[in-house]
């Protein structure tokens, strides 16, 4: 089961957090700080999974941004590891046009294979600027995450289906 999803930058600042288990707001900051410290201290060649107290952390780094998922030890870590990537791909699919104004990312607009996908993701998060682009659309990232994970379980991984409600909302906003 998934306990929480965190997005933190290299400075240890929380960009997004979603808890599927009750944790008091006042306790969260300390927990997040520990989690970040835990992940930041890891080397590249080390395992992407690490224990923090009774939580197993599965983390992935995208340039300056870390996405950390806390799971119970009965969870399949590797599937969560790939889930993070799926999430990032969804974000990329949604925001690619936003950052497409940035000339660097222009050519990677239409990802076709796995390789280019990774490429895009790296591009998306490559600079502080793009990290902030995500931040400026915090509520949308949350909406996307809500479509994918509920109650600590993976509920949808199909990219177009994940994005459908958000697109519909945007469309509605544009129409009104």
């Amino acid at each position: 089961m998934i306990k929480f999803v965190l997005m933190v930058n290299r400075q240890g600042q929380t960009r997004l957090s979603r808890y599927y288990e009750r944790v008091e707001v006042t306790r969260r900051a300390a927990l997040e700080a520990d989690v970040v410290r835990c992940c930041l201290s890891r080397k590249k060649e080390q395992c992407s999974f690490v224990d923090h107290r009774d939580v197993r952390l599965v983390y992935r780094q995208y340039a300056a941004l870390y996405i950390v998922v806390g799971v119970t030890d009965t969870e399949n870590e590797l599937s969560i590891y790939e889930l993070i990537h799926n999430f990032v791909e969804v974000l990329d699919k949604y925001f690619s046009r936003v950052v497409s104004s940035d000339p660097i990312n222009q050519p990677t607009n239409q990802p076709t294979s796995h390789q280019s996908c990774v490429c895009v993701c790296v591009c998306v998060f490559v600079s502080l600027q793009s990290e902030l682009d995500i931040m400026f659309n915090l509520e949308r990232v949350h909406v996307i995450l809500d479509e994918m994970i509920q109650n600590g379980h993976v509920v949808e991984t199909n990219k177009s289906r994940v994005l459908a409600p958000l697109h519909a909302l945007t469309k509605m906003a544009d129409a009104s």
Partner: protein
Amino acid sequence: MSDVVEKTLTALPSLLSLDSQPGAAKLSSTSKLGNLIRGITELTSKHEEEKLIHRELASIKEQVSSPNTSMRQMKELMVRAIYCESLGYEASFSYIHAIKLAQQGTGLEKRVGYLAVSLFLNENHELLLLLVNTVLKDLQSTNLIEVCMALTVVSQMFPKDMIPAILPLVEEKLNHPKEIIRRKAVLALYKFYLIAPNQVQHIHNKFRKALCDKDPGVMTASLHIYLQMIQENAEGYKDLTASFVSILKQVVGGKLPIDFNYHSVPAPWLQIQLIRILSLLGKNDQRTSEIMYEVLDESLRRAEMNHNITYAILYECVKCIYTIHPKSDLLEKAAKCIGNFVLSPKINLKYLGLKALTYVIQQDPKLALQHQMTIIECLDHPDLIIKRETLELLFRITNTQNVVVIVEKMLEFLRMSTDDYTTIDLVGKVAELAEKYPSDCVCFSYKNYTYAPDNEWFIETMNTVFSLSGDTMQPDIPNSFLKLLSEGFESVEEDRKLRLFAVDSYVTLLKGETGKLPQFFLQVISWVLGEYSHLSEELKPATVLELLQKLLDRKQTSSETKSWALMAMTKLCEGRAGVSVAQQVSETYISSMDTVLRQRAQELQHLSQDSELRARVLPRDADLEPLEVDSSLSFLDGFVSEALAAGAAPYKPPHQRQEELSQAKVLSLEPYGLSLPISMSSCSIADRQSPTLLSMSSGLSGDSTDLSHKGGSTTLKFEGVKRVWGKEGYLAQKESVEEAVQVEAPSPLRSTSQQAEVVGSHSQTPTLTPTPEPEQEKQQLASSLFFGISSQSSVCLMGKSGPTPQRFRRKAKGQSSSSGATEQMSNSVVFTSTTVDNLLCNNPPDSTITSEVDVSSSKHTSELPQGLTAANGTCDIEAELTDSDLKGSSPPLSGDNGLENADPDPHENLDKPQGVCLSSHLPAELSGLCRSEITPLCTLQNLDLSACHVHREDTIVLVVFITNSSDSAVQHIRLDLDSELLEVSCVSESPAKDVRSVAVYLYSLTVRRPAVHVELAGTVSYQVPVGTPQTAQFSYKLPLTAFIRPLTVSTEEYGTMWLAFSHDTKQNLTLINDGQEPLVATLNVLRKKLQLHVVEVIGVEGILACKLLQDQPCLMHFRVHEGALAVWLRSPVPDLPDCLIYHCQRALQEH
């Protein structure tokens, strides 16, 4: 509007490409959120962040409450509030506005409102109720997006009690034409199932419909419910196995639309979910398992692509294959798969491989052998989590042969670990292993050391565990360790060695730097030194005292540890030097603010001055006898009743006092919570109505015993302590080698090269090609780690999912010598009274007793002539009898038990005719009554004195028979009886002054002062026609029970009497468990044996009454409490309750 939305949903894919300027871009970086984020990002100190956020929150607060704020602005404010909260600053003022936004906003505004609600509130928040109406309205909306939003929030959180209000609407959505609505409705029902399973009981068939939905998304959603339900009850869903299998087949076969693929793998998370469901269904079920073999094989085959996600699926497959009923070719493939994982250079895969191995090793320990070299490498892996997982794996394959090496590896890890959580976990595991494995195992060599779990190893391992764990250890570890030490093992000699070793090692530790030792450890050390330092011959008590004193003087020593140290000193303060140290120390702590310390100091002071008392209070090796803790502190009852009589308020437990205080709305005494008198006096004198009310005093005692539990060694609990640590000697090294070779041979899974290595490392066969040094070391380690794993018999697996293994298991214990001895001892102690009681009840003594009787009676008779030849007139036998009586080593009175004893012993046959004769001389009015056996009192030349006592309803009659066996008449017989405890009045004397055959004397007895046994001393004097007057002394003993009669009272009378009586005593007795209701059975035994009257039995409580002749009542209150019988006796007569308790105990023991 809804048309637009409908269109939107259907035309999604095209919209994606057409919409060149989605709303996402509208929020520019110049917005206020943008400014906030930028501001935060640029900050460097926490302090600045705090300042900035507080400013931000203040401004948000101002704006949200302004009536002019538009919904659009509100949405923006809400996002900022979300951000602030995610940084750890509470924004509770915005919660209500989030609900308002969800209610009044449209589109994205509404969504943000719902989002904020789901982020801010938890399931039980009261504000959530305000959301119900909004959800209800949105569920009925024609706008599909709004329905979607409502269903999303419902599946995230919803107040449990309000489910019925929306359930029909959600159910209705299950038939909605749009898949997204159906899917979200299923997820909402899943949430309902999680929080209130009963509410959705009736729609289980609809779940089945969802499972068969033509849309894969809806089907996927329904799997969440099924996984949950199958986890709870796999039996109920076996019929669905084929459906799950066919779904998985289709998914694996690529029948799903292409957009479900992730990196060309069809719906991997769905596959994982399905495999998990299958493994739950196939567990321990061959038939169901058979249905899924094919699809699992297919999954294994398809998942050969080189990508993480396929490995994730494979991992799930492997787990499934090892969970369900085994199939050999699948197992083989799974094993190969694990092999690929653990050998992979990719670290994540290696980790997953280890995890899989840890799991499957419980089913197939041989698999560990295949990968032993990899496991060894992983043990020294630089990545801690790999190491940790490897230790977890090893923990599961420990057996007697490898435990030392594995524990060593774990301790190595512990030394490096900085994380409390890991430390606590590992310390627990090491302690478990150290205590689990007895030392009777094989020696083997590793790095030139001989490793065998023995005494030294155990103590040293525990030392390391204690020192490493710091003060974070679970408190049961030191407790169990001490119990283990004190309980001992099979061999007394080994116990002594173990304890001695512990003492020596602790003395060495204390002599060194103690600053770093954790408090727990110091407490253990103190206890062990106090209890066992006398075992060491060269160690003087003064040295230990000095060390303990040093410990006391240290600032870092906690007061709890100090009280342990004081306790230890109390046990050790011997001799002049000891006493002076004790005095000095107790001086220091006698005025301590800590009450426990103060009490310990008092104890130390008093006991050090009174060595006799000390020996009684703190006997050495007291651990052999189980200590009964009088948790009700009954010994204080006298004190309490005196205090109560003097007008003190009855005791109330702290919680009740607190309650009353808060009700009375008086000043809170919280800070003075510890000072009892204040709160006591503030209590009203509560009505004293019943024993239950008064038994509140046990609340007090509970508290104080708890304290002494912590502080005092004498209160260690011994019940339920399991022991495992024992020693039966080691197997010789040679044997181990042989065994190793044997063990390796039958393992079919092992490659020949590995086999050669292992065998080589054990037997050092010369054919072995020389291997480089480090390599060899690894192999040696491997051989020691995996020793004995393939020999099925010695494998000891510790199930991961099984119940937590009990720490400290008791070894299969036969009649251990020590306990046998205790039993015997107690047998002999009770013996005198047993026989007396047996006599009394006219029951033949049981076989063990008779056998001893035989021996002693033969002795008895052989001594008779000696006694007779001693012509000083007093009977020597008498003296000897009382003597032996005191010692309790031989039966005094039953040697010549008369008629009733059916034992055909020749010695007794002598007496038998006499017994027959005597009983015929009983006065007619006594003949039908219950009486004791006739016992000889003394013999003088031709005269035999015998006696018995007869139970009459209102009195007890002592009958003394004087038998003249000679022809000549005996004259002037004078019989004087006297007793401190009894009042003796003569009822009748035999009229004849000259006794030719038998003279009978009757006396009526009344108890003056109760005692467990009451004794009469008598003198008989007489004259024979020719010769000097003769005198002889004798004694006769009766149990108090002879004077007990049932007292018939009603419950009401009982109640009033209870309150009137001042002398009482409490004790716990053992319950009789022979099939029927224990309380009733126990009371019945007591009633029969002691002649009690059962007033009433209600539930677990029973009240009984009896009287001591003539009219001295005693009331008894019995209550079954935690498997024991708590007895409370009250009487107006001092000592009576105590004596009765004794007889109750006896009666139950004999039963």
